[in-house]
Every structure is written in structure tokens, then in C-alpha cells.
């Protein structure tokens, strides 16, 4: 643990902070928020509803606000012990700095050490502004030579030139927007001779979100400070960027400057987003795929685009194996491949969506960066813009672009898995994490309950379960994607997900297959090696039931419940008894056999869950018996599930 601040020091700090806030100089980091959205957000945090939280964060609720009791979402989440949610909040920019009132309180309130350590590890040094990376990319563009992304040259009277980006300039300055939209062929802009170069450099740093130097006059400049300031003033008016003055004035106070900078970045983000929508999305074109080649875009267009991305529209017809592999035979089969439910009525023409985009933002992905820096076709100068095919549906591409341009990730669960693959291919780790985050909201939220859903019958769909109706993603796909793409977080998630609903999956052929796959993932597997997935499932299974057992004293209960049953079964199926085991385990083993048998029968005949009969005060267990109360039922269920796993392993001839 890091050094703790003494109470009196903390109090002094809080007082100081309060005073600054009262005097209006400093904005509160955790403002009071009584809006219904925020209340809902807090409620979702209390429940641990990952998905709802994710949605609300995406919709823009302030993650660092507090309610009338001074609770922030992070405090509630850590108080209620939702580890994944705490992680999500921290990753989304929730503040838990030691030495602030809120930060200390959060750490103090955390339910357990695991969460506490997580919070501490996100202390000030690490919890960066989520927009930091985005902003510094912008700043870096200013001096960046390769790959070439600049498309406007500013010439100054002294002969110094600046290579700038039309997209950014028009996003940040209304003046440039008007000017450049009116005359898209503009490639140079002349700085009036009356304005010192230093002034322009300063303004540029502001536009590109760089740090503003305290001394506006460079060391070897010929201009005086006054001239430079006058120049800045003129540029402000000309480029219509009045906010710049605030920046100049706040440059001397570190905290104010930081706050000002954050505001500015947020503003810039909005501006870029707006321009992004006004150019890239607005000018999206959908054409027939076979006509794509005929599209010629000039280099100087009103969208300032220097590149075109193409994504083929997904056809919800035909069998995917044919359609996706069409153009060049190596398309990544992201589109529908598995058997479609309803047969296609007719073959439609293929369509493609084209987006005019800007390399300046694309190169945030190492994929594009390499592409444009290399000597391959895409990096060659041509008369018309290159059209680069993307292996995803337009919706996913839009999500990717949105992220690249604005750092926002508004991920719909339906496409999350696609996005996971696409971002992996583009080597966008951050987006990949976000996609994984989105996926891990699966099954949480409104349909958290486990046993109730069980009663819903699964019908003709072979691999789907009840979530086929509810969840847009197949959990088997998720685990395979996790394996493919090395997403540990999703592996954990799936294991927990499966553990929570194991009774629904344990008997499926697909599940066995999955376990087998997991076992095969380890090359040259030894007899004694474990199966990773299964271990994880066991772990979560234990967690699922553990709390109750600890309180109730498992052993007593098991004995009470099962002794007579065991004897009964022993008589019926003596061949199953295993030597040398304790009475209880012995009894349980018998019980399992008993449990499996009816289950197998139930699979053909209907479902175990169909047995909905209920006696007063009693609870039905998984093997169809009636336990005295829920605790007893849980204990039995736990054992039943564990033993079914063993039985399955037996069948698969795997040891674990």
C-alpha cells in the first residue's frame, strides 16, 4: 500500500479544495448530479449491471459526479464489490486519486482487498485522462513527416512553412472551414506578413492541442513579446478561435491551465466529431460492389479526404460461404458463414459502402500507419484517392472510424464480436479492450438470474441456449474469439458465464466439444495437465455457491440431506460405488449417477426444468429431488454439477 495521508492533512487539503471551488476558480471534480440518468447509473452500479453502465457511459453521463449523499459511481461499485464494474469505471476515466476526499473514501469503502488494490493501482499516476492519447496524437501530427498526412501548406513571410491538416483546421477554426469548403483545391495558405511567425506557432499549438509555452517568444525570435501577442490577437479574430485567449491568460496557474486544457480537449473532441459526421459519415456512399473500381475521387475534395475506405454491405441472404469469399478469395470471413436460419429467397446485387477518410486519423492504427509508410500500392501517389477495402461490415467500420476520430466507442452488442476481430486486425488494442468490455456485459443486467431462465425451453437451434432469444451473441463464439485473439478477459468472462448457468450447458454436445478444444489448446498435453477452461469454470462455480456454504456449514447439511438418499441409491445401483471414499462423497457419487440418468432422459423428453412442481417450503434441486430449503438445494446442486463435469470428462476420456 502506498503511504497513507494523515487525517488532519487530508482535512486541510479538503478545506483548501473546497475554498478554491467556492471562489469559482476551480471546478469541482465531482459535481452534484441529480438527473434521473445519473440516478439510474448509480442504481446500475449498485446492481453491478455492466451492460447498463456501459450504455450510460457511452451516452455521456458524467462518470465522476456524485449524488446528494456524496456517492460517486466508483464508490458504490467498489462498496458493492463489483470488481469488473470497478475496472470498467476506472478504465473509462473514473477518478480515485489518493489524497482527495473522494479518492480516499473510495479506497476506504472498498468491499475487499482485491478491489482496493485495483483502486490503488489506478492512482493518480496511472489514471490518465482517457482523451490524453487522442490529444497527443493530434499534437504529434504537427511535426510528423511520415507517413505524409498533411495537405495544406502555410507559407509565412519569413520563408518558414508549416505542413498542416485541412481536416483539423476546419474542425477547429470556423474560418478555415468556410474557406476550405468553398475552395477545396486550396493547398497553400499565406500568413499575413504583419503577423509574427511566433504568433502563428502559438496558435497552431493551441489548435493541435499542444502544451502552450509560457514564453510566447522563441529564444531566437526577432519579434518582441508585444508584437507576438498582437499577432495572436489578430489570428484569434481572423480564425474565430476566441477561446484561445483563455488559454493564454490561464497559462500561469498550473491547476487552472490543466482544467482549461481538459476543457479544450473535450471541445476539440466535439468539434472533430462534428466535422467527422459532416464529412466522413455524411458523404458515405453505397454503390454496387462491381462498380467500385470506377469511382474516381479527386485529391482535393470538400471532405478533405485523402483516402477512401470500403466496406461491403452484409447481405442477409444466401449462404455466407459463397458471398464473403467472393472478391479476392482471401476475405476474412467475418460475415455470416454458419447456416442461416431461413433459406434465401433470391440473390441480390452486392453493395459496398465507401467512406472518405483522413489518413491523419487512420494512422492511429498501426495497421494503417505501416500501410501508409510502406512502399506498397496504398502509399503510392496516384491521381485519385486509393480505395482500401476493409474486411468488415459498414456498421463495424463506422464504429472503428468513430473511435479513431473521436476516441469514442459506442458499441452495440450485436456487432461487438465483429468489432473485436476488426480491431484486432487493425492492432487497435484499446478498441479491442472496449469491444471485449462490451461483450462481457453479456448476461448481466436485466437477465442476471440463472435458474428462472432455465425453464425456457430451447428448441430447434443446436448450439443456442435461452440467450439466443435474449442475447445477440453466442457464448461459444465468444470463447473461441477469446482464444483466437488472446483476450484473457473474455476467457475469464466466459468461464464465469458458463459456471453461472452450467446446468444449461453441461449436457450439450457443443459444450463437450468446447472442453475438448480447450484441452487440445495445450500442445503435448500430459495426463496431469489441467484443462484451463474447466478449471476456470470450477473456480467460478465455487464462487457461485461458496458464500452460502460458508455460513451454513456444508458438511452437516450434506449429511442430513443425503445419507438416507445415498443408502437408497446404494441399493439401487451398487455397481457405481467407488472404494475408499468417505460416506458423503460416496453418497454424492451415487446421487450424481442418479442425477445424470433422469437428465439424459429429460433431454429427449423435454427438460429438467419442466418439473416446476413446488412443495411448501421445499426447493427443487437439479436432480429433481426436493431439498428442505435453498441452502440445502444449493449444496446439492453444487455437488451435482461438479460430478456431472467429472462424468463428462470420463466420457471425453480426459483427465483433469
Amino acid at each position, binding site marked *: 500500500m502506498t503511504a497513507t495521508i494523515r487525517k488532519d492533512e487530508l482535512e486541510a487539503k479538503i478545506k483548501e479544495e473546497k475554498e478554491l471551488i467556492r471562489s469559482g476558480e476551480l471546478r469541482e471534480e465531482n459535481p452534484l448530479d441529480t438527473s434521473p440518468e445519473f440516478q439510474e447509473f448509480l442504481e446500475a452500479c449498485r446492481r453491478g449491471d455492466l451492460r447498463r453502465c456501459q450504455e450510460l457511459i457511452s451516452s455521456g453521463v458524467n462518470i465522476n459526479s456524485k449524488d446528494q449523499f456524496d456517492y460517486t459511481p466508483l464508490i458504490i461499485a467498489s462498496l458493492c464489490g463489483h470488481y469488473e464494474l470497478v475496472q470498467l469505471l476506472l478504465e473509462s476515466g473514473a477518478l480515485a486519486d489518493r489524497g482527495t476526499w473522494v479518492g480516499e473514501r473510495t479506497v476506504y469503502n472498498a468491499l475487499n482487498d482485491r478491489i482496493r488494490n485495483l483502486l490503488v493501482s489506478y492512482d493518480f499516476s496511472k489514471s490518465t485522462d482517457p482523451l490524453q492519447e487522442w490529444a497527443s496524437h493530434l499534437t504529434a501530427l504537427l511535426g510528423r513527416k511520415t507517413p505524409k498526412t498533411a495537405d495544406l501548406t502555410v507559407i509565412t513571410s519569413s520563408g518558414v512553412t508549416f505542413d498542416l491538416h485541412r481536416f483539423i483546421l476546419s474542425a477547429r477554426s470556423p474560418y478555415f472551414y468556410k474557406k476550405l469548403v468553398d475552395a477545396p483545391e486550396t493547398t497553400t495558405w499565406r500568413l499575413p506578413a504583419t503577423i509574427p511567425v511566433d504568433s502563428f506557432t502559438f496558435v497552431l499549438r493551441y489548435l493541435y492541442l499542444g502544451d502552450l509555452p509560457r514564453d510566447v517568444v522563441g529564444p531566437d525570435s526577432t519579434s518582441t513579446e508585444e508584437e507576438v501577442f498582437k499577432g495572436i490577437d489578430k489570428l484569434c479574430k481572423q480564425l474565430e478561435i476566441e477561446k484561445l485567449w483563455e488559454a493564454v491568460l490561464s497559462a500561469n496557474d498550473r491547476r487552472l491551465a490543466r482544467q482549461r486544457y481538459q476543457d479544450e480537449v473535450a471541445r476539440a473532441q466535439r468539434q472533430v466529431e462534428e466535422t467527422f459526421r459532416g464529412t466522413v459519415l455524411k458523404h458515405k456512399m453505397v454503390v454496387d460492389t462491381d462498380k467500385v473500381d470506377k469511382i474516381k475521387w479527386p485529391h482535393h475534395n470538400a471532405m478533405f479526404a485523402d483516402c477512401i475506405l470500403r466496406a461491403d454491405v452484409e447481405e442477409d441472404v444466401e449462404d455466407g460461404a459463397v458471398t464473403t469469399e467472393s472478391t*479476392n*478469395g*482471401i*476475405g*476474412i*470471413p*467475418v*460475415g*455470416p*458463414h*454458419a*447456416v*442461416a*436460419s431461413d433459406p434465401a429467397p433470391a440473390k441480390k446485387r452486392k453493395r459496398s459502402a465507401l467512406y472518405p477518410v483522413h489518413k491523419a486519423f487512420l494512422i492511429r492504427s*498501426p*495497421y494503417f500507419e*505501416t*500501410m501508409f*509508410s*510502406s*512502399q*506498397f*500500392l*496504398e*502509399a*503510392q501517389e496516384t491521381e485519385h484517392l486509393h480505395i*482500401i*477495402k476493409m*474486411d468488415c461490415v459498414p456498421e463495424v467500420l463506422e464504429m472503428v472510424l468513430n473511435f479513431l476520430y473521436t476516441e469514442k466507442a459506442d458499441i452495440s452488442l*450485436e456487432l461487438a*464480436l*465483429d468489432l473485436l*476481430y476488426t480491431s484486432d*486486425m487493425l*492492432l487497435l488494442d484499446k478498441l479491442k479492450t472496449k469491444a471485449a468490455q462490451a461483450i462481457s456485459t453479456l448476461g448481466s443486467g436485466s437477465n442476471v438470474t440463472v435458474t428462472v431462465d432455465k425453464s425456457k425451453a430451447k428448441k430447434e437451434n443446436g448450439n443456442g441456449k435461452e440467450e*439466443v*432469444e435474449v*442475447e*445477440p451473441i*453466442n457464448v461459444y*463464439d465468444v470463447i*473461441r*474469439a477469446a*482464444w*483466437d485473439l*488472446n483476450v484473457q478477459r473474455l476467457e475469464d468472462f466466459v468461464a464465469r458465464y458458463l459456471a453461472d448457468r452450467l446446468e444449461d450447458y453441461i449436457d450439450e454436445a457443443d459444450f463437450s466439444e468446447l472442453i475438448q478444444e480447450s484441452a487440445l489448446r495445450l500442445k503435448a498435453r500430459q495426463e496431469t495437465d489441467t484443462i484451463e477452461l474447466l478449471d476456470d469454470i470450477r473456480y467460478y462455480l465455487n464462487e457461485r455457491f461458496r458464500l452460502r456454504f460458508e455460513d451454513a456449514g456444508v458438511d452437516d447439511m450434506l449429511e442430513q440431506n443425503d445419507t438416507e438418499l445415498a443408502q437408497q441409491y446404494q441399493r439401487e445401483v451398487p455397481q457405481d460405488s467407488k472404494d475408499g471414499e468417505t460416506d458423503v462423497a460416496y453418497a454424492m457419487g451415487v446421487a450424481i449417477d442418479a442425477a445424470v440418468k433422469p437428465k439424459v432422459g429429460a433431454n429427449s423428453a423435454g427438460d429438467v426444468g419442466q418439473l416446476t412442481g413446488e412443495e411448501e417450503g421445499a426447493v427443487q434441486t437439479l436432480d429433481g429431488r426436493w431439498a428442505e430449503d435453498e441452502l440445502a438445494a444449493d449444496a446439492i446442486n453444487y455437488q451435482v454439477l461438479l460430478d456431472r463435469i467429472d462424468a463428462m470428462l470420463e466420457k471425453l476420456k480426459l483427465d483433469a
Partner: protein
Amino acid sequence: MLTTTKQPIVGRAGEDDFDPCWDLLRQALIDVHEKNAGKLSFEQLYRASYKIVLRKKGELLYDRVKEFEEKWFRDHVMPPIEALLTKSLINITLVSMPNSTSTNERRQLGEKFLVGIRDSWVDHNTSMNMIADILMYLDRTYSTDNGRPSLWATTIGLFRDNILRAGLGGLVDELDQASVIFDVVNAVVMDLINLERDGDVIDRSLIRKIVNMLEMLYETNEEVQDERLYLTVFEPAYLANSRRYYQSECEKLLRNGDAAEWLRHTQRRLAEEQTRCETTISISTADKIAEVVQQELISAHLDEFLAMEGSGLRSMIDNDRLEDLAILYQLISRVDPKKEALKRTIQSRVRDLGLEIEQELKKTDFSVPQTAAAEGDEAAPDAPAKAQPLNQAAQQTAAAIKWVDDVLSLKDKFDNFHVNCFDEDIIIQSAVTRSFSEFINQFNRSSEYVSLFIDDNLKRGIRGKTEAEVDTVLDKAIVLVRYLTDRDMFERYYQKHLARRLLQGKSESHAAEKEMISRMKQEMGSHFTSKFEGMFKDMDLSRDLTNGYREHIRGLGQVEQHRVDLNISVLTTNSWPPEVMGRSAQEGTLGDCTMPPEIARLRESFYKYYLKDRSGRILTWVVTAGTAELKCMFPKVSGKETGPLSKDRRYELTVSTYGMIVLLLFNDLGPDEWLSFEEIQEKTNIPPQELSRTLASVSLAAKARVLLKNPMSKQVRPGDKFSYNASFVSKAIKIKAPIINTTSKVEGDEERKETEKKNDDTRKHIIDAAIVRIMKQRKTLSHANLVSEVITQLANRFKPDVSMVKVRIEDLLYREYLERDEDGTSYRYLA
């Protein structure tokens, strides 16, 4: 809701996807190698490789690419290189056959070979970069996850394994089998660099390219950071080669025997190597190669160069070759932060020069009047040319001043070096300081001379100088004082000289005196200057006393006819040198000397006044230290109508107190009456020696000859007769009779011995006190410890002689202050 069938990924789709993808990639690889990449679509290729990896075929892809590249390398890259490896190339590089080829030929051959290697490398590097771009996903996932070196590292490593490490396979018989192409590359590069060192022009950028190549290649495909081939192979070879080169160069320089040339050459070489590292090879080598040059050109033969006759360090110092010294200092600081060699030589040089000054001093004959005059000296205002014994003193003063001047100019010289050449180096400075103090203290009259120098300056030297100039003089003096170890000696001399300046009112500037003392105080502590300050205090008090007494007399209203103005100095015995106090005490006080009645009355009256406030004190009259100012009137000599003798002449005559007593006798005497030496002695009771001096001062020197002596000789002897000189004429109204004092300016040898003896006596007491102080505190202490402790304690007063300390310990044992311990090695304090 898109819920029904969407299954976004086919993780396990057909095995046969691999082949079309691989075909595509393979074709691309060929295009890349053939520089046709411009028509390839990165997107397509990346997708192909991505797909393969996703289908878990990464390993296969990895191996295929590797295999392809190896084959390509064998078929297309190797042959041209092998063609370059001619017999003659290897002959001139590895099997050195001197004179078999001309320099030019050698260079052309070598450069051609390097160009071949470079071109091949550039192509390979570009291709591998592009391939790595395409296979980025493979490297990022498969290679990392499976712990294999990245494909990039593997393919780029081909160049190392297949070219650089390819054996020369018996191309030339003389070679051992282990030689590889790398050796040839190295040898060619070294050869070219050596050519450049010899003044040739070579293709630097070519070598730079080759070096870049070596920096990008590693020993193994794991690419361990410090296992770059440049570091593991090239650099050691390069350093060894350079070492050989500079070894032989250094020998050449030694043969030439010119240290100045050596200095400049070495400096140039160092700069050259630095530039070479910047432009031709890697900057990371800069420090190491500098180390080699330093070792070979500087450290290896440093002493020989320093000792070089006519151009070595000694001649640099003697001829003030500042530039050489500066370079030398820079070079030596590079190799030895302690600068031992330089320090040693400079130290001994300083000592030698110091001793030379002493020798010089002994040789110079100050008795030659010109010399004395040349020294600009009226050091002794008593006409040195005339009186031989007085001249002695003047000579000494002159010698002292010359010595001090020489030492100071020597000091200036080294200070100049220190600032301009040695970068104010603290090590050198302390070394020089030590040498200075060494030779200064070796010279046994240094304390006296330094004091004399100050005396001289304070008396006349600072006349008409600005404050700043006075300051520098004082600074110099302090610098010298700082070097002295026997400070008690200096203290004694200074006290003596100061006393004389004060009592005889010869001090030029009171402010300067005070300043000097405050500086000494800063330098040596207040105990050192307490006596001097006491002397000043006495003088101040005396002035007040005198004024008070005058007021007192006026108040009494006793206006006498022959009013005598008394100016009295009351001296505290302890503060003043015993020569002033002591001598009078032993040779005769007031009681022995008969004062004229008016003076005696005055004395009585003052004594009364003095005791009014300070009863119980005893005043001893130190007649020898006093002076008197006599206003005398010489009546006109009858018979002379013109000339100065024709009127009354009034003069103010300054003489010693004895002089006054003697002259007052003649007040009552007629012009032609004579008094014999004996008569005067009888009347005044002045000791004969003093009397003869006194008489000499008023009867011998022309400008103050108020008495006539019979016979007219240059010596005053018993039996001489004296008479009032009625025809005394002087242009000045104020006349100062030369004061011939026993406490003469510079001591003769005997006197000095005496001073030393006295000093030793004082030291004895100081040592005794120190020993007792230490033992009282420690109770028991071993002999060695005691001695060393005594020496430390007394260090800032003087440097005690160990044997003297021993004697004192013996003495204290005898006096039973101490006793020997049982074991005989330590002493115990007896309370």
C-alpha cells in the same frame, strides 16, 4: 434484433485456405525482392497473412517465409558477393603483403568490395522491412506468443549468417580456415580508416553505411541489445587496430622529441577521432576510441614527453608557453584526474625556482651602492654610503625586498598558469601552494623578510597609492604570510617592526596598518594579532593621556619659561617586544640617567598626574624609545655680514631622548667651550654605547651636525671632544637627526641567532603548555600520539621540532609533571 443466426467468425474453417493465401504471399515476396512492390496491395497481403495466423497456421507461414528467404538468399544474393571476393582482395586485406599493391589500388579494391556489400545490404534491408510490414500481425502475435524471434529478426539475420559469417573456403592458402567474410569487411574498413588517418580522402558515407549495417545486426536472432555485431565484432577489432596505429605513431613522436608538436598532434588526433565517430563510424565508440588515443598517445609515454629537453614541461614553464601548458593540462586531465605527473613536475619546478631565488640572493652583492640605489632605496634614511654598519641594514632590507618581490613574481607566474592554462584546477593549486610553502620555509630568514617587506611597504611603499593598489600590496603580503609555517617567528618580527613604526611615527597610514592586522586576523586567528591590537590600543590610550595631561597643566596655570610639550606613550609590557622594554630594563632606567632639571620636573609632574587615577602603577621610562623635538636658535655669527650666518637661524631639531639630554648640556655652554665624551657621560649617566650613538647622530651626519667634534673622524670614541656648532646652517627648518638605534632594521647574523634563541625559549614554554594541556585531558598517552597531538595543536603557530618536543617531555618528566608508564611507551599525567 439481429439475433437469429449471426455467427461472426469461422475459426475453424477449411484447411485449404492456406495455400491460396501462401501463393499470394509468395508471389509478393518475389515482387518485393525484385522491387516491384509498388503494384502490391498492402491491404491484401496483410489480410492474407492475418488470416493464416488466425487460422493457427502461423508456424507454417513462419517456416515457409523463412525457407523462401533462405532460398532466395542463396540463389540471388550470395553469388554477386562471392564474385567480389577475389584472391587479391583477400591478399591485401587479411594476408598482409606489404608493397604488393599501391595505396590507390588497395583503396579501390577495398571500396569496390564495400560497395558490393553495402548494395546487397541495402536491398536486403529494404526487402525485409517490407516483408516485416506485411507480416506484422504474425510477428506481433505468433512470434511473441511462441517465443520465437520475430520474422524480421530471422530474415535480417540471414545476411549475417550467410554473408558475414560465410567462410572464405580456402580461397587463399595462407589463411586459416576460420576466416570469414566479416574479417575482410573489417580489414577493409580499418585499412580505409588508417588511410584517412594518414591524410588520404576516403568515402566516409560508404563506411557509415557498413557500420549502420553492423549496428542493425545482432549476434543472434534474439537481438539482445548489447550483442550488436558492431559492438561484439567490429568495435573490438577497430579499437585494437587503432591502438596499434597510435602506438607506432607515438614512437615516431618520441623520436622527433618535440613535446610541443606532440601536444598539438595529440590534440588534433583526439578531435579527429571524435569527428570520425560522428561522421564515419558510430558515435557510441567515441569514448572508447578516445580512451585508446589517450592511453597510447598520452599516458604511455607521458613522463618522457614531460621530461623532454628544450620542449618539455620545464621549458614550457620557464618560457611561459601558456598555450602549450593549456593543451598539456587538458590532455593530462583526460587521462588522470589526479594529474600526478603534471603535479609532480610542477611541484619540483616551483621548489627549484624558489631555491634559485635564494641562490640569487646570496650571490647578489647588496653592498655595492648602485645596487642599493637601484633598489630605489633610502631604506635607511641615514646616508648608507657613508656609514658602513648602517649600510648593513640597508642591504638587508634591500635583500628582503628583492627576495619577496621575486617570490611574488614567481607566484604571479604560477597564478597566471593557474588561471589561463590549468582551468583553476584545485589539485594543481594545492600542489603549487605546498611547494611554495616548502621552499619559503626552507629559507631560514623568510619570516623576517616577509615582515620587513610589510614594514617597508607600510612605511613608504604605499605612499601616493590608491586604495586598490594598497589592497593588492596587502594581499600579496598576506599570501606570503600564509605560506609561513613558523608563524611565531613572524609574529615576533612583525611585533618588533610594528613597535618601531608606531613609536617613531613612521607608519604611513594608520588605516593600512589596521587593515593589515585585520587580514592577518582573518587568516590566522585573533590570538595571533592580539598583541598587535594591544599595541594600537596603547597608542590610542597614550594619546588621550597626553591630551589629558596637557589640559591638566594648562589648568594649573604654570606657564613656564621653557615650556616642554610632553608626548607620552604608555606601553603595556606584554604587548610590546622585549627589545623595546627589556633592554632598557637591564641597561638602565631613568634613575641611572641624569635628566636635565626641567625635564626631570616635567617627569615628576606627569607621574603625579598619572597616578591620580591609577594609583599603584609603576611607570618605567624607556628613554631609548623616545624622541624629542627641540626648537633651537642659532644666533648670528658676528663678523659675517652676508650669507645665512649673518642672521639668527631657527631650526626644529628632532633627536632621540638621549640626544635631547646631551644637547641640553650645550645650552649653557659658550661657543668655544668643549665637552669631552667622558664629561658628557658623567653629567648624563648615559651608557657609553648609547652615548656614542647619540653623539654620532648629532655630530657626524652633515645635515644635522649641530655639534662639532674634535678630532674630526667618522667614529665617536672616548676622549673625543664636542662643542656647539655655531655656524650650523641648514636649508630645511625641520631637521631630523638620524636615529641610530640598537633595534636596527635588519638583524645581523648574531642578532638573528639571538632572536632565534629567544624564540626557541618562548617556544619551549608554548610546547610545555601544550603538553600539559593535552596530558591533563588525556591522563595517559603514548609517546607517538603525544608528539603528533602536540604538533597538530601548534600547527598554526609554528612547526615544532620533534626533538625539541622530546626534550620538553624529558624536562617535564624531570619536573614531575609527567611520569612514564610501566611499559615505558606511554606517559601519565601527574596532577
